[in-house]
């Protein structure tokens, strides 16, 4: 029945039947909530969560709130620190794995683990490992004679932010290394051989063969992972909860707390719109810088 009906359609009609359910569903994610979000950002909500239109009041309120600028700055430091770390370490891991022909598959498997586990679990494991009294990090450092007193890792603002960046990068390195490794494997070996014959040094080969050939995977990992780091909530929420004080409070927490602590859905929506614009800019910036055509 269904099969006969499908066979009577023209090819274009048949393809539309297959693709339309998903397109409708996607429209529901892009269309409905997005319009709704922009409307919410221009509204104020009463106790029963009924909106009333208030124009750009929410945006004015957000831009005059010191906490917004503080959290935005934190988010930039966090994202910038993580990008720098995951890119450099991920690149080093990819180059190293490419060099080793021994046990490559299990090694790649182990190095994938931080990516595959829940971010909440990763943050919880590091929170416990960094525990002042019973954590493994202080224990190993003091056994090695490197510290005399246990360090209170998550009680100092700057230190807590550095560790937050470290854990974020820890989660992202596998994906970065995996894509760059796949890119490295796709570079034909003859390129290196002929360059070596022509007397190119290691650095020259890296600069003129490796980097240009990795342009596409590099742009992918940078744009995707920068965006993901900027908007992640789970790691901060479990590792530091934004503390000590407000020193690791990120913009995502500002949104979440505005919505579900203050029940100020208008402000939360306004900052959500700002967040979306930043994510869009990150991607546009990278793709433009690396001149990739979609």
């Amino acid at each position, binding site marked *: 029945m269904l099969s006969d009906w499908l066979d009577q359609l023209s090819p274009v009609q048949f393809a539309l039947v297959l693709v339309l359910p998903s397109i409708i569903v996607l429209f529901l994610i892009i269309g409905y909530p997005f319009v709704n979000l922009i409307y919410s950002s221009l509204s104020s909500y009463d106790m029963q969560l009924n909106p009333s239109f208030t124009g750009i009041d929410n945006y004015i309120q957000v831009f005059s709130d010191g906490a917004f600028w503080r959290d935005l700055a934190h988010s930039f430091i966090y994202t910038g620190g993580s990008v720098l770390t995951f890119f450099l370490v991920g690149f080093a891991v990819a180059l190293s794995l490419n060099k080793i022909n021994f046990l490559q598959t299990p090694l790649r498997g182990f190095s994938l683990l931080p990516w595959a586990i829940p971010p909440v679990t990763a943050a919880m494991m590091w929170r416990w490992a960094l525990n002042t009294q019973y954590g493994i990090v202080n224990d190993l450092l003091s056994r090695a004679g490197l510290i005399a007193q246990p360090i209170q890792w998550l009680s100092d603002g700057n230190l807590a932010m550095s560790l937050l960046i470290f854990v974020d990068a820890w989660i992202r390195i596998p994906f970065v290394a995996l894509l760059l490794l796949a890119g490295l494997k796709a570079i034909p070996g003859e390129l290196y051989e002929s360059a070596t014959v022509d007397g190119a040094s290691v650095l020259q080969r890296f600069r003129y063969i490796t980097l240009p050939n990795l342009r596409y995977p590099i742009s992918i990992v940078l744009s995707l992972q920068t965006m993901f780091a900027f908007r992640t909530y789970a790691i901060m929420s*479990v590792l530091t909860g934004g503390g000590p004080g407000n020193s690791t409070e990120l913009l995502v927490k500002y949104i979440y707390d505005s919505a579900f602590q203050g029940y100020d859905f208008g402000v939360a929506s306004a900052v959500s719109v700002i967040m979306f614009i930043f*994510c869009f800019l990150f991607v546009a910036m990278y793709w433009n810088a690396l001149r990739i055509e979609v």
Partner: protein
Amino acid sequence: MNGKSRLIKSWNRTDKSKLLAYFVIFVYLAFVLLPFFFTFITSIKTNKELTTTPISYLVKNPTWKPYYSVLFERAYGRYMLNTLIVSLAVVILCTLFGVPAAYALAKYRLPFKSGMLLSTISVRLIPPISLIVPFFLFIRIINALDTLQALIMVNFLMNLPFFIWIAWGFLKDLPAELEEAAMIDGCTRLQALWKVTIPIASPGLGAAAIVSFLFTWNEYLFALTFSQSVASKTISVGISDFVGDVFVRWNMISAAGILTTIPALIFVFVFQSYIVEGLTAGSVKG
């Protein structure tokens, strides 16, 4: 003398960069495995051994009690069941919607085809946190807060674009001849898709399924926002609850943490090639 200098020469020529590579991998793996190792040994410690210092690395009285407590005294078993149901439902929905869509986009001429593909990828630009307010208001209106259905719906919406993208990457490279031959032999369009294309593309579709399973299993923000009780809490929400609960000891939290890594361990070590292909599909070459 001659032999020694030859040895030094060969050492100078080949081994140094490889040695550096091994060193980098070794240090990196130490950082990767350190928290797993520590969490695992913590999860089999008794309450007493948990708080003895210096830490014992060879657990003196290994016990499964923390796993038992967390699963049956703290409802974590229920959280795991909830998460499994949501993840499986999302994979099934993504397959039902995503495979036909990816197939049509890969194999047929369509109006606005590149627009459809582009909008599929661009959905990934929307930060999940930006969607919690509209999703929350919607789920509240349809009276579905604190249900598994709500979690299935939002995770399905977030994963479908990615699923289509991975599946499309595989399907577009399949040769068209096989299907044409099947149709000449009297297969209907559906039979050609079901009996010829899907079996050949199964590694790619498997990759898409595994990645969307893991993303749903690992998801935190939506579950935190839309779940309030054991009826719909997930493993990630459970862990964050425990971390903030002074009555839950770290051996129990660690046991819960280890339980959350089971799918990751299975997929990474049994289906590694699927994951690698899924993640790298379409991202190495333009």
